Protein backbone atom coordinates (compact mmCIF):
# COMPACT_ATOMS: atom_id res chain seq x y z
CA UNK A 1 0.00 0.00 0.00
CA UNK A 2 1.23 3.53 -0.75
CA UNK A 3 2.91 5.40 2.06
CA UNK A 4 0.55 8.35 2.24
CA UNK A 5 -2.67 6.36 2.25
CA UNK A 6 -4.99 7.08 5.16
CA UNK A 7 -7.03 3.89 5.15
CA UNK A 8 -6.57 0.19 5.73
CA UNK A 9 -5.53 -2.01 2.86
CA UNK A 10 -6.65 -5.58 2.27
CA UNK A 11 -4.59 -8.03 0.32
CA UNK A 12 -5.07 -11.18 -1.72
CA UNK A 13 -5.94 -14.42 0.08
CA UNK A 14 -3.08 -16.02 1.96
CA UNK A 15 -1.67 -19.18 0.43
CA UNK A 16 -2.12 -21.28 3.55
CA UNK A 17 -5.05 -19.81 5.41
CA UNK A 18 -7.12 -18.40 2.50
CA UNK A 19 -7.74 -15.34 4.63
CA UNK A 20 -7.05 -11.88 3.33
CA UNK A 21 -4.48 -9.98 5.42
CA UNK A 22 -5.20 -6.39 6.37
CA UNK A 23 -2.60 -3.70 6.88
CA UNK A 24 -4.01 -1.26 9.39
CA UNK A 25 -3.51 2.46 9.14
CA UNK A 26 -2.41 4.08 12.40
CA UNK A 27 -3.56 7.70 12.39
CA UNK A 28 -1.26 10.10 14.27
CA UNK A 29 -4.10 11.32 16.48
CA UNK A 30 -5.42 7.86 17.35
CA UNK A 31 -7.54 7.81 20.46
CA UNK A 32 -7.37 5.11 23.12
CA UNK A 33 -10.62 3.62 21.89
CA UNK A 34 -9.40 3.48 18.31
CA UNK A 35 -6.19 1.86 19.43
CA UNK A 36 -8.15 -0.83 21.28
CA UNK A 37 -10.15 -1.49 18.14
CA UNK A 38 -7.09 -1.78 15.96
CA UNK A 39 -5.36 -4.09 18.42
CA UNK A 40 -8.47 -6.27 18.67
CA UNK A 41 -8.60 -6.57 14.90
CA UNK A 42 -4.90 -7.37 14.69
CA UNK A 43 -5.21 -9.99 17.37
CA UNK A 44 -8.21 -11.60 15.68
CA UNK A 45 -6.42 -11.58 12.35
CA UNK A 46 -3.33 -13.21 13.83
CA UNK A 47 -5.33 -15.85 15.66
CA UNK A 48 -7.43 -16.67 12.58
CA UNK A 49 -4.33 -16.84 10.43
CA UNK A 50 -2.63 -19.25 12.83
CA UNK A 51 -5.64 -21.53 13.07
CA UNK A 52 -6.45 -21.80 9.41
CA UNK A 53 -2.88 -22.06 8.16
CA UNK A 54 -2.25 -24.94 10.54
CA UNK A 55 -5.63 -26.54 9.83
CA UNK A 56 -5.30 -26.41 6.06
CA UNK A 57 -1.77 -27.69 6.16
CA UNK A 58 -2.89 -30.61 8.31
CA UNK A 59 -5.72 -31.30 5.86
CA UNK A 60 -3.44 -31.36 2.87
CA UNK A 61 -0.91 -33.54 4.63
CA UNK A 62 -3.44 -36.05 5.90
CA UNK A 63 -5.08 -36.17 2.50
CA UNK A 64 -1.76 -37.04 0.87
CA UNK A 65 -1.09 -39.72 3.46
CA UNK A 66 -4.55 -41.18 2.99
CA UNK A 67 -4.21 -41.31 -0.78
CA UNK A 68 -0.78 -42.88 -0.44
CA UNK A 69 -1.94 -45.55 1.98
CA UNK A 70 -4.98 -46.38 -0.10
CA UNK A 71 -3.01 -46.59 -3.31
CA UNK A 72 -0.44 -48.80 -1.64
CA UNK A 73 -3.22 -51.07 -0.39
CA UNK A 74 -4.45 -51.33 -3.96
CA UNK A 75 -0.92 -52.03 -5.14
CA UNK A 76 -0.57 -48.85 -7.21
CA UNK A 77 2.13 -46.21 -7.24
CA UNK A 78 1.66 -42.51 -6.53
CA UNK A 79 2.34 -41.69 -10.15
CA UNK A 80 1.40 -43.89 -13.05
CA UNK A 81 3.34 -44.50 -16.31
CA UNK A 82 2.56 -41.13 -17.86
CA UNK A 83 3.81 -39.33 -14.74
CA UNK A 84 0.32 -38.17 -13.74
CA UNK A 85 -0.49 -38.08 -10.06
CA UNK A 86 -2.85 -40.94 -9.23
CA UNK A 87 -6.01 -39.89 -7.39
CA UNK A 88 -8.82 -41.71 -5.71
CA UNK A 89 -12.38 -41.15 -6.75
CA UNK A 90 -14.92 -39.21 -4.67
CA UNK A 91 -16.39 -42.27 -2.96
CA UNK A 92 -13.04 -43.40 -1.63
CA UNK A 93 -12.21 -39.90 -0.49
CA UNK A 94 -15.53 -39.74 1.36
CA UNK A 95 -14.13 -41.95 4.11
CA UNK A 96 -11.27 -39.54 4.58
CA UNK A 97 -13.56 -36.52 4.73
CA UNK A 98 -15.77 -38.15 7.30
CA UNK A 99 -12.80 -39.09 9.41
CA UNK A 100 -11.15 -35.69 9.17
CA UNK A 101 -14.32 -33.88 10.20
CA UNK A 102 -14.79 -36.16 13.18
CA UNK A 103 -11.20 -35.77 14.33
CA UNK A 104 -11.29 -31.97 14.21
CA UNK A 105 -14.76 -31.53 15.68
CA UNK A 106 -13.63 -30.35 19.12
CA UNK A 107 -11.03 -28.06 17.59
CA UNK A 108 -13.74 -26.42 15.52
CA UNK A 109 -16.07 -25.96 18.48
CA UNK A 110 -13.34 -24.15 20.38
CA UNK A 111 -12.47 -22.04 17.35
CA UNK A 112 -16.11 -21.14 16.81
CA UNK A 113 -16.41 -19.83 20.34
CA UNK A 114 -13.24 -17.74 19.93
CA UNK A 115 -14.27 -16.42 16.54
CA UNK A 116 -17.72 -15.34 17.71
CA UNK A 117 -16.17 -13.58 20.72
CA UNK A 118 -13.66 -11.74 18.51
CA UNK A 119 -16.30 -10.83 15.97
CA UNK A 120 -18.73 -9.38 18.50
CA UNK A 121 -16.03 -7.47 20.34
CA UNK A 122 -14.63 -5.95 17.16
CA UNK A 123 -18.05 -4.96 15.86
CA UNK A 124 -19.00 -3.45 19.21
CA UNK A 125 -15.78 -1.42 19.34
CA UNK A 126 -16.38 -0.31 15.75
CA UNK A 127 -19.79 0.90 16.83
CA UNK A 128 -18.32 2.84 19.74
CA UNK A 129 -15.67 4.45 17.54
CA UNK A 130 -18.26 5.39 14.94
CA UNK A 131 -20.48 6.92 17.61
CA UNK A 132 -17.63 8.97 19.09
CA UNK A 133 -16.60 10.19 15.65
CA UNK A 134 -20.17 11.15 14.80
CA UNK A 135 -20.57 13.10 18.05
CA UNK A 136 -17.26 14.86 17.45
CA UNK A 137 -18.35 15.82 13.94
CA UNK A 138 -21.69 17.13 15.20
CA UNK A 139 -19.96 19.17 17.90
CA UNK A 140 -17.58 20.64 15.31
CA UNK A 141 -20.48 21.57 13.05
CA UNK A 142 -22.33 23.24 15.91
CA UNK A 143 -19.21 25.25 16.69
CA UNK A 144 -18.88 26.31 13.05
CA UNK A 145 -22.53 27.32 12.89
CA UNK A 146 -22.21 29.35 16.10
CA UNK A 147 -19.10 31.09 14.73
Amino acid at each position, binding site marked *: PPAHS*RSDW*IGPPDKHSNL*RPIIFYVPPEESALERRLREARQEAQASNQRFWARHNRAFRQEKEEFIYSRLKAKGLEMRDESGQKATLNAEEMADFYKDF*LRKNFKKHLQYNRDWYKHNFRITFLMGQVALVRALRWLRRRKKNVEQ
Partner: protein
Amino acid sequence: MSAARSCRPPRALAGLFVGCLRNTGARQIPCRFVHLYHVGSYRLITFQYFSFLKRMYVTQCNNDLSQRAKPKSDSIVSAFHELQQLDQEKKVVHEISSVSPVHQSWSEMSSRNELREMKSAAETEDSLIAGGAESKEDRQWKEMKLRLDDLPGILARLSKIKLTALVVSTASAGFAMAPVPFELTCFLLASLGTGLASCAANSINQFFEVPFDSNMNRTKNRPLVRGQISPLLAVCFAASCGIPGIALLTLGVNPLTGALGAFNIFLYTCCYTPLKRMSIANTWVGAVVGAIPPVMGWTAATGSLDAGALLLGGILYSWQFPHFNALSWGLREDYSRGGYCMMSVTHPGLCRRVALRHCLALIGLSTVAPVLNITTWTFPIISLPINLYISYLGFRFYRDADRSSSRKLFFCSLWHLPMLLLVMFTCKKSVLEKEDKGELRGESHEMAMEIRLP
Protein backbone atom coordinates in the same frame (compact mmCIF):
# COMPACT_ATOMS: atom_id res chain seq x y z
CA MET B 1 -33.11 -18.64 3.48
CA SER B 2 -30.41 -21.17 4.21
CA ALA B 3 -26.83 -20.20 3.61
CA ALA B 4 -25.37 -23.39 2.34
CA ARG B 5 -27.91 -23.60 -0.37
CA SER B 6 -26.74 -22.03 -3.52
CA CYS B 7 -27.53 -21.92 -7.16
CA ARG B 8 -31.06 -20.75 -6.65
CA PRO B 9 -31.72 -18.81 -9.79
CA PRO B 10 -33.62 -15.59 -9.43
CA ARG B 11 -37.27 -15.68 -10.12
CA ALA B 12 -38.29 -12.85 -12.36
CA LEU B 13 -39.56 -10.51 -9.67
CA ALA B 14 -40.42 -8.11 -12.46
CA GLY B 15 -42.58 -10.83 -13.89
CA LEU B 16 -44.49 -10.97 -10.62
CA PHE B 17 -45.15 -7.27 -10.81
CA VAL B 18 -46.38 -7.74 -14.38
CA GLY B 19 -48.78 -10.30 -13.03
CA CYS B 20 -49.98 -7.84 -10.38
CA LEU B 21 -50.44 -5.00 -12.83
CA ARG B 22 -52.49 -7.18 -15.09
CA ASN B 23 -54.57 -8.20 -12.14
CA THR B 24 -55.49 -4.65 -11.12
CA GLY B 25 -56.79 -3.97 -14.63
CA ALA B 26 -58.86 -7.12 -14.63
CA ARG B 27 -60.40 -6.79 -11.19
CA GLN B 28 -63.94 -6.13 -12.37
CA ILE B 29 -63.81 -9.10 -14.71
CA PRO B 30 -64.94 -12.39 -13.21
CA CYS B 31 -62.41 -14.70 -11.71
CA ARG B 32 -61.92 -17.03 -14.67
CA PHE B 33 -60.48 -14.28 -16.85
CA VAL B 34 -58.12 -13.17 -14.12
CA HIS B 35 -57.12 -16.77 -13.76
CA LEU B 36 -56.13 -16.93 -17.40
CA TYR B 37 -54.13 -13.75 -17.12
CA HIS B 38 -52.31 -15.17 -14.16
CA VAL B 39 -51.62 -18.38 -15.99
CA GLY B 40 -50.35 -16.45 -18.98
CA SER B 41 -47.95 -14.32 -17.01
CA TYR B 42 -46.77 -17.28 -14.95
CA ARG B 43 -46.09 -19.34 -18.08
CA LEU B 44 -44.10 -16.47 -19.50
CA ILE B 45 -42.13 -16.22 -16.28
CA THR B 46 -41.44 -19.93 -16.24
CA PHE B 47 -40.19 -19.95 -19.80
CA GLN B 48 -37.94 -16.94 -19.29
CA TYR B 49 -36.77 -18.36 -16.01
CA PHE B 50 -36.02 -21.70 -17.56
CA SER B 51 -33.97 -20.27 -20.41
CA PHE B 52 -32.24 -18.00 -17.92
CA LEU B 53 -31.47 -21.09 -15.85
CA LYS B 54 -29.97 -22.81 -18.88
CA ARG B 55 -27.81 -19.80 -19.68
CA MET B 56 -26.54 -19.54 -16.15
CA TYR B 57 -25.77 -23.18 -15.62
CA VAL B 58 -24.27 -24.00 -18.98
CA THR B 59 -21.54 -21.52 -18.21
CA GLN B 60 -20.87 -23.31 -14.96
CA CYS B 61 -20.85 -26.84 -16.35
CA ASN B 62 -17.12 -26.87 -16.74
CA ASN B 63 -16.52 -25.61 -13.25
CA ASP B 64 -17.47 -27.37 -10.11
CA LEU B 65 -21.19 -27.86 -9.64
CA SER B 66 -20.82 -26.33 -6.27
CA GLN B 67 -19.98 -22.89 -7.61
CA ARG B 68 -22.79 -20.45 -7.22
CA ALA B 69 -23.81 -19.58 -10.73
CA LYS B 70 -23.06 -15.94 -11.43
CA PRO B 71 -24.55 -14.42 -14.56
CA LYS B 72 -21.80 -13.84 -17.10
CA SER B 73 -22.27 -10.07 -17.19
CA ASP B 74 -21.51 -9.92 -13.46
CA SER B 75 -17.94 -11.13 -13.86
CA ILE B 76 -17.16 -8.68 -16.64
CA VAL B 77 -18.48 -5.74 -14.64
CA SER B 78 -16.49 -6.68 -11.57
CA ALA B 79 -13.34 -7.13 -13.65
CA PHE B 80 -13.82 -3.65 -15.01
CA HIS B 81 -14.19 -2.19 -11.54
CA GLU B 82 -11.05 -3.89 -10.42
CA LEU B 83 -9.14 -2.64 -13.45
CA GLN B 84 -10.33 0.80 -12.47
CA GLN B 85 -8.82 0.37 -9.05
CA LEU B 86 -5.57 -0.90 -10.50
CA ASP B 87 -5.31 2.18 -12.67
CA GLN B 88 -6.09 4.32 -9.66
CA GLU B 89 -3.26 2.68 -7.74
CA LYS B 90 -0.93 3.32 -10.66
CA LYS B 91 -1.97 6.95 -10.60
CA VAL B 92 -1.32 7.21 -6.87
CA VAL B 93 2.16 5.80 -7.37
CA HIS B 94 2.85 8.37 -10.07
CA GLU B 95 1.79 11.13 -7.69
CA ILE B 96 4.34 10.00 -5.12
CA SER B 97 7.14 9.93 -7.64
CA SER B 98 6.35 13.44 -8.89
CA VAL B 99 6.98 14.72 -5.32
CA SER B 100 4.34 17.40 -5.35
CA PRO B 101 2.61 18.30 -2.08
CA VAL B 102 -0.85 17.17 -3.05
CA HIS B 103 -3.64 16.57 -0.57
CA GLN B 104 -4.74 12.92 -0.53
CA SER B 105 -8.38 13.41 -1.43
CA TRP B 106 -7.56 15.93 -4.16
CA SER B 107 -5.06 13.59 -5.74
CA GLU B 108 -7.63 10.84 -5.74
CA MET B 109 -10.18 13.12 -7.35
CA SER B 110 -7.79 14.24 -10.07
CA SER B 111 -6.63 10.72 -10.62
CA ARG B 112 -10.23 9.66 -10.99
CA ASN B 113 -10.82 12.34 -13.66
CA GLU B 114 -7.67 11.42 -15.49
CA LEU B 115 -8.67 7.84 -15.02
CA ARG B 116 -11.85 8.43 -16.96
CA GLU B 117 -9.82 9.70 -19.91
CA MET B 118 -7.46 6.80 -19.58
CA LYS B 119 -10.42 4.45 -19.44
CA SER B 120 -11.92 5.59 -22.72
CA ALA B 121 -8.55 5.33 -24.41
CA ALA B 122 -7.73 1.95 -23.04
CA GLU B 123 -11.23 0.52 -23.09
CA THR B 124 -10.82 -1.79 -26.03
CA GLU B 125 -7.56 -3.08 -24.70
CA ASP B 126 -9.07 -3.52 -21.25
CA SER B 127 -12.01 -5.52 -22.47
CA LEU B 128 -9.68 -7.92 -24.24
CA ILE B 129 -7.62 -8.60 -21.19
CA ALA B 130 -10.60 -8.30 -18.83
CA GLY B 131 -11.07 -12.03 -18.63
CA GLY B 132 -7.48 -12.88 -17.86
CA ALA B 133 -6.95 -9.85 -15.70
CA GLU B 134 -9.75 -10.70 -13.32
CA SER B 135 -7.83 -13.33 -11.44
CA LYS B 136 -4.78 -11.07 -11.46
CA GLU B 137 -6.78 -8.25 -9.91
CA ASP B 138 -7.78 -10.58 -7.18
CA ARG B 139 -4.14 -10.79 -6.15
CA GLN B 140 -3.73 -7.03 -5.80
CA TRP B 141 -3.86 -5.05 -2.59
CA LYS B 142 -7.00 -2.99 -2.34
CA GLU B 143 -7.82 0.06 -0.31
CA MET B 144 -10.47 -0.59 2.30
CA LYS B 145 -12.48 2.46 1.52
CA LEU B 146 -16.18 2.32 0.84
CA ARG B 147 -17.14 3.78 -2.50
CA LEU B 148 -20.73 4.91 -2.74
CA ASP B 149 -21.22 3.78 -6.31
CA ASP B 150 -20.13 0.27 -5.36
CA LEU B 151 -22.52 0.18 -2.44
CA PRO B 152 -25.69 -1.11 -4.16
CA GLY B 153 -23.81 -4.03 -5.69
CA ILE B 154 -22.11 -4.82 -2.41
CA LEU B 155 -25.37 -4.71 -0.48
CA ALA B 156 -27.05 -6.87 -3.08
CA ARG B 157 -24.39 -9.52 -2.64
CA LEU B 158 -24.47 -9.14 1.11
CA SER B 159 -28.21 -9.73 1.25
CA LYS B 160 -28.02 -12.55 -1.29
CA ILE B 161 -30.55 -10.73 -3.41
CA LYS B 162 -31.24 -13.66 -5.73
CA LEU B 163 -32.03 -15.98 -2.87
CA THR B 164 -34.19 -13.25 -1.35
CA ALA B 165 -36.09 -12.93 -4.61
CA LEU B 166 -36.76 -16.66 -4.54
CA VAL B 167 -37.96 -16.50 -0.95
CA VAL B 168 -40.30 -13.63 -1.80
CA SER B 169 -41.71 -15.58 -4.71
CA THR B 170 -42.47 -18.60 -2.50
CA ALA B 171 -44.18 -16.23 -0.08
CA SER B 172 -46.27 -14.78 -2.90
CA ALA B 173 -47.15 -18.31 -3.97
CA GLY B 174 -48.46 -18.85 -0.45
CA PHE B 175 -50.42 -15.61 -0.69
CA ALA B 176 -51.87 -16.56 -4.06
CA MET B 177 -52.97 -19.98 -2.88
CA ALA B 178 -54.96 -18.62 0.03
CA PRO B 179 -58.73 -18.97 -0.54
CA VAL B 180 -59.51 -15.27 -0.21
CA PRO B 181 -60.04 -12.52 -2.79
CA PHE B 182 -56.77 -11.03 -3.93
CA GLU B 183 -55.79 -7.72 -2.34
CA LEU B 184 -52.97 -5.90 -4.07
CA THR B 185 -51.81 -3.64 -1.22
CA CYS B 186 -51.70 -6.53 1.22
CA PHE B 187 -49.78 -8.61 -1.29
CA LEU B 188 -47.20 -5.89 -1.93
CA LEU B 189 -46.72 -5.15 1.76
CA ALA B 190 -46.31 -8.81 2.58
CA SER B 191 -43.80 -9.33 -0.24
CA LEU B 192 -41.80 -6.25 0.72
CA GLY B 193 -41.77 -7.19 4.38
CA THR B 194 -40.67 -10.74 3.61
CA GLY B 195 -37.97 -9.47 1.27
CA LEU B 196 -36.57 -7.10 3.89
CA ALA B 197 -36.61 -9.80 6.54
CA SER B 198 -34.78 -12.16 4.21
CA CYS B 199 -32.13 -9.50 3.42
CA ALA B 200 -31.54 -8.96 7.10
CA ALA B 201 -31.20 -12.67 7.85
CA ASN B 202 -28.80 -13.25 4.96
CA SER B 203 -26.61 -10.32 5.98
CA ILE B 204 -26.31 -11.54 9.54
CA ASN B 205 -25.48 -14.99 8.26
CA GLN B 206 -22.60 -13.62 6.18
CA PHE B 207 -21.47 -11.53 9.15
CA PHE B 208 -21.12 -14.67 11.25
CA GLU B 209 -19.37 -16.78 8.66
CA VAL B 210 -16.47 -14.68 7.35
CA PRO B 211 -13.46 -16.98 7.96
CA PHE B 212 -15.39 -20.06 6.88
CA ASP B 213 -16.61 -18.42 3.72
CA SER B 214 -13.04 -17.44 2.83
CA ASN B 215 -12.04 -21.09 2.90
CA MET B 216 -14.76 -22.45 0.68
CA ASN B 217 -14.63 -22.08 -3.07
CA ARG B 218 -18.28 -21.32 -3.41
CA THR B 219 -18.34 -18.40 -0.99
CA LYS B 220 -14.92 -16.81 -1.14
CA ASN B 221 -16.09 -13.80 -3.14
CA ARG B 222 -18.54 -12.45 -0.64
CA PRO B 223 -18.29 -8.76 0.31
CA LEU B 224 -17.25 -9.23 3.94
CA VAL B 225 -14.64 -11.80 2.94
CA ARG B 226 -13.14 -9.38 0.44
CA GLY B 227 -13.22 -6.49 2.87
CA GLN B 228 -15.45 -4.39 0.65
CA ILE B 229 -17.63 -3.54 3.63
CA SER B 230 -17.02 -3.40 7.36
CA PRO B 231 -18.77 -5.78 9.77
CA LEU B 232 -20.34 -2.78 11.49
CA LEU B 233 -21.95 -1.65 8.27
CA ALA B 234 -23.19 -5.15 7.58
CA VAL B 235 -24.89 -5.30 10.98
CA CYS B 236 -26.36 -1.81 10.54
CA PHE B 237 -27.69 -2.79 7.12
CA ALA B 238 -29.23 -5.93 8.56
CA ALA B 239 -30.89 -3.94 11.34
CA SER B 240 -32.13 -1.29 8.92
CA CYS B 241 -33.70 -4.00 6.78
CA GLY B 242 -34.95 -6.31 9.46
CA ILE B 243 -36.61 -3.85 11.82
CA PRO B 244 -38.65 -2.01 9.17
CA GLY B 245 -39.41 -5.33 7.50
CA ILE B 246 -40.84 -6.91 10.61
CA ALA B 247 -42.60 -3.68 11.59
CA LEU B 248 -44.15 -3.55 8.14
CA LEU B 249 -45.36 -7.11 8.46
CA THR B 250 -46.73 -6.65 11.96
CA LEU B 251 -48.41 -3.30 11.46
CA GLY B 252 -49.14 -3.29 7.75
CA VAL B 253 -50.25 -6.89 7.32
CA ASN B 254 -51.00 -8.71 10.55
CA PRO B 255 -49.16 -9.58 13.77
CA LEU B 256 -49.10 -13.29 12.99
CA THR B 257 -47.12 -12.74 9.81
CA GLY B 258 -44.79 -10.38 11.65
CA ALA B 259 -44.22 -12.93 14.36
CA LEU B 260 -43.48 -15.63 11.80
CA GLY B 261 -41.03 -13.33 10.05
CA ALA B 262 -39.19 -12.49 13.25
CA PHE B 263 -39.14 -16.14 14.25
CA ASN B 264 -37.72 -17.10 10.87
CA ILE B 265 -34.92 -14.55 11.14
CA PHE B 266 -34.10 -15.87 14.59
CA LEU B 267 -34.21 -19.48 13.43
CA TYR B 268 -31.92 -18.79 10.51
CA THR B 269 -29.33 -16.61 12.20
CA CYS B 270 -29.23 -17.97 15.73
CA CYS B 271 -30.14 -21.62 15.20
CA TYR B 272 -29.24 -22.73 11.70
CA THR B 273 -25.97 -20.82 11.31
CA PRO B 274 -24.25 -21.96 14.52
CA LEU B 275 -25.81 -25.42 14.24
CA LYS B 276 -24.15 -25.93 10.86
CA ARG B 277 -20.88 -26.42 12.68
CA MET B 278 -22.20 -28.52 15.49
CA SER B 279 -24.59 -31.16 14.26
CA ILE B 280 -26.29 -32.51 11.16
CA ALA B 281 -29.65 -31.41 12.60
CA ASN B 282 -28.99 -28.11 10.85
CA THR B 283 -30.46 -29.48 7.62
CA TRP B 284 -33.84 -30.04 9.25
CA VAL B 285 -33.81 -26.61 10.85
CA GLY B 286 -32.85 -25.12 7.50
CA ALA B 287 -35.75 -26.92 5.84
CA VAL B 288 -38.14 -25.30 8.33
CA VAL B 289 -36.58 -21.92 7.54
CA GLY B 290 -37.34 -22.50 3.90
CA ALA B 291 -40.86 -23.66 4.62
CA ILE B 292 -41.95 -20.64 6.62
CA PRO B 293 -42.15 -17.99 3.82
CA PRO B 294 -45.14 -19.58 2.02
CA VAL B 295 -46.85 -19.96 5.39
CA MET B 296 -46.20 -16.25 5.92
CA GLY B 297 -47.75 -15.50 2.55
CA TRP B 298 -50.84 -17.48 3.45
CA THR B 299 -51.26 -15.86 6.87
CA ALA B 300 -50.78 -12.46 5.27
CA ALA B 301 -53.79 -13.15 3.07
CA THR B 302 -56.05 -14.90 5.53
CA GLY B 303 -54.75 -13.81 8.91
CA SER B 304 -54.86 -17.30 10.34
CA LEU B 305 -52.78 -20.45 10.30
CA ASP B 306 -54.94 -22.99 8.47
CA ALA B 307 -54.25 -26.48 7.31
CA GLY B 308 -53.61 -25.06 3.85
CA ALA B 309 -50.74 -22.94 5.12
CA LEU B 310 -49.20 -25.93 6.81
CA LEU B 311 -49.57 -28.00 3.68
CA LEU B 312 -47.77 -25.43 1.57
CA GLY B 313 -45.09 -25.20 4.20
CA GLY B 314 -44.90 -28.96 4.21
CA ILE B 315 -44.38 -29.10 0.46
CA LEU B 316 -41.53 -26.63 0.66
CA TYR B 317 -40.07 -28.42 3.66
CA SER B 318 -39.98 -31.70 1.79
CA TRP B 319 -38.56 -30.05 -1.30
CA GLN B 320 -35.56 -28.69 0.60
CA PHE B 321 -34.14 -32.16 1.21
CA PRO B 322 -33.59 -33.45 -2.33
CA HIS B 323 -32.44 -29.95 -3.26
CA PHE B 324 -29.89 -29.52 -0.53
CA ASN B 325 -28.70 -33.10 -0.14
CA ALA B 326 -27.99 -33.35 -3.85
CA LEU B 327 -26.09 -30.04 -3.76
CA SER B 328 -24.04 -30.94 -0.72
CA TRP B 329 -22.94 -34.22 -2.30
CA GLY B 330 -20.47 -32.37 -4.52
CA LEU B 331 -19.18 -30.11 -1.74
CA ARG B 332 -17.95 -32.78 0.64
CA GLU B 333 -14.31 -31.78 0.54
CA ASP B 334 -15.01 -28.12 1.27
CA TYR B 335 -17.42 -28.98 4.06
CA SER B 336 -14.99 -31.38 5.65
CA ARG B 337 -12.13 -28.91 5.58
CA GLY B 338 -14.32 -26.04 6.70
CA GLY B 339 -15.65 -27.98 9.66
CA TYR B 340 -19.30 -28.06 8.63
CA CYS B 341 -21.35 -30.98 9.92
CA MET B 342 -23.39 -32.08 6.94
CA MET B 343 -25.10 -35.37 6.29
CA SER B 344 -23.29 -35.84 3.03
CA VAL B 345 -19.98 -35.98 4.90
CA THR B 346 -20.85 -37.76 8.14
CA HIS B 347 -23.83 -39.95 7.23
CA PRO B 348 -23.86 -40.38 3.46
CA GLY B 349 -26.36 -43.23 3.54
CA LEU B 350 -28.78 -41.18 5.59
CA CYS B 351 -28.28 -38.27 3.23
CA ARG B 352 -29.50 -40.24 0.23
CA ARG B 353 -32.28 -41.99 2.14
CA VAL B 354 -33.71 -38.73 3.39
CA ALA B 355 -33.60 -37.19 -0.08
CA LEU B 356 -35.54 -40.11 -1.54
CA ARG B 357 -37.96 -40.19 1.36
CA HIS B 358 -38.90 -36.56 0.87
CA CYS B 359 -39.25 -36.88 -2.90
CA LEU B 360 -41.89 -39.52 -2.21
CA ALA B 361 -43.44 -37.33 0.48
CA LEU B 362 -43.99 -34.68 -2.17
CA ILE B 363 -46.30 -37.07 -4.01
CA GLY B 364 -48.21 -37.70 -0.82
CA LEU B 365 -48.53 -34.03 0.02
CA SER B 366 -49.76 -33.20 -3.47
CA THR B 367 -52.52 -35.74 -2.96
CA VAL B 368 -53.58 -34.17 0.33
CA ALA B 369 -54.06 -30.75 -1.29
CA PRO B 370 -57.53 -31.42 -2.78
CA VAL B 371 -58.64 -33.09 0.43
CA LEU B 372 -58.07 -29.80 2.21
CA ASN B 373 -60.01 -27.93 -0.48
CA ILE B 374 -57.02 -25.97 -1.63
CA THR B 375 -56.95 -27.36 -5.13
CA THR B 376 -59.15 -29.45 -7.31
CA TRP B 377 -58.49 -33.14 -7.88
CA THR B 378 -56.72 -32.36 -11.13
CA PHE B 379 -53.71 -31.16 -9.16
CA PRO B 380 -52.35 -34.51 -7.91
CA ILE B 381 -53.02 -35.98 -11.34
CA ILE B 382 -51.22 -33.28 -13.30
CA SER B 383 -48.37 -33.01 -10.83
CA LEU B 384 -47.85 -36.75 -10.74
CA PRO B 385 -45.46 -36.88 -13.73
CA ILE B 386 -43.06 -34.29 -12.32
CA ASN B 387 -43.27 -35.73 -8.83
CA LEU B 388 -42.58 -39.20 -10.18
CA TYR B 389 -39.66 -37.90 -12.18
CA ILE B 390 -38.00 -36.27 -9.21
CA SER B 391 -38.64 -39.40 -7.16
CA TYR B 392 -37.03 -41.46 -9.89
CA LEU B 393 -33.97 -39.22 -9.83
CA GLY B 394 -34.02 -39.42 -6.06
CA PHE B 395 -34.00 -43.18 -6.32
CA ARG B 396 -31.11 -43.10 -8.78
CA PHE B 397 -29.20 -40.86 -6.39
CA TYR B 398 -29.96 -43.28 -3.57
CA ARG B 399 -28.74 -46.25 -5.53
CA ASP B 400 -25.77 -44.83 -7.46
CA ALA B 401 -24.56 -42.20 -4.97
CA ASP B 402 -22.30 -40.55 -7.49
CA ARG B 403 -21.69 -37.09 -8.82
CA SER B 404 -23.81 -37.35 -11.96
CA SER B 405 -26.92 -38.57 -10.16
CA SER B 406 -26.57 -35.85 -7.52
CA ARG B 407 -26.25 -33.22 -10.22
CA LYS B 408 -29.30 -34.50 -12.07
CA LEU B 409 -31.35 -34.48 -8.90
CA PHE B 410 -30.21 -30.98 -7.99
CA PHE B 411 -30.99 -29.51 -11.40
CA CYS B 412 -34.35 -31.23 -11.44
CA SER B 413 -35.23 -29.73 -8.06
CA LEU B 414 -34.58 -26.29 -9.51
CA TRP B 415 -37.35 -26.48 -12.09
CA HIS B 416 -39.53 -28.88 -10.17
CA LEU B 417 -40.53 -26.39 -7.49
CA PRO B 418 -41.70 -23.55 -9.77
CA MET B 419 -43.53 -26.06 -11.95
CA LEU B 420 -45.27 -27.57 -8.96
CA LEU B 421 -46.31 -24.19 -7.59
CA LEU B 422 -47.53 -23.13 -11.02
CA VAL B 423 -49.63 -26.25 -11.47
CA MET B 424 -50.95 -25.83 -7.96
CA PHE B 425 -51.98 -22.29 -8.73
CA THR B 426 -53.75 -23.21 -11.94
CA CYS B 427 -55.61 -25.97 -10.12
CA LYS B 428 -56.55 -23.70 -7.26
CA LYS B 429 -60.10 -24.07 -6.08
CA SER B 430 -61.63 -20.72 -6.99
CA VAL B 431 -63.29 -18.79 -4.20
CA LEU B 432 -65.88 -17.32 -6.57
CA GLU B 433 -66.75 -20.79 -7.82
CA LYS B 434 -68.02 -21.72 -4.39
CA GLU B 435 -69.92 -18.43 -4.10
CA ASP B 436 -71.48 -18.92 -7.56
CA LYS B 437 -72.75 -22.31 -6.55
CA GLY B 438 -74.38 -20.82 -3.47
CA GLU B 439 -75.99 -18.02 -5.52
CA LEU B 440 -77.34 -20.45 -8.06
CA ARG B 441 -79.03 -22.45 -5.37
CA GLY B 442 -80.50 -19.28 -3.89
CA GLU B 443 -81.79 -18.17 -7.32
CA SER B 444 -83.46 -21.46 -8.07
CA HIS B 445 -85.17 -21.28 -4.68
CA GLU B 446 -86.44 -17.79 -5.48
CA MET B 447 -87.71 -18.89 -8.87
CA ALA B 448 -89.48 -21.83 -7.30
CA MET B 449 -91.16 -19.47 -4.79
CA GLU B 450 -92.23 -17.10 -7.58
CA ILE B 451 -93.84 -19.92 -9.45
CA ARG B 452 -95.79 -20.95 -6.40
CA LEU B 453 -97.08 -17.46 -5.66
CA PRO B 454 -99.75 -16.37 -8.12
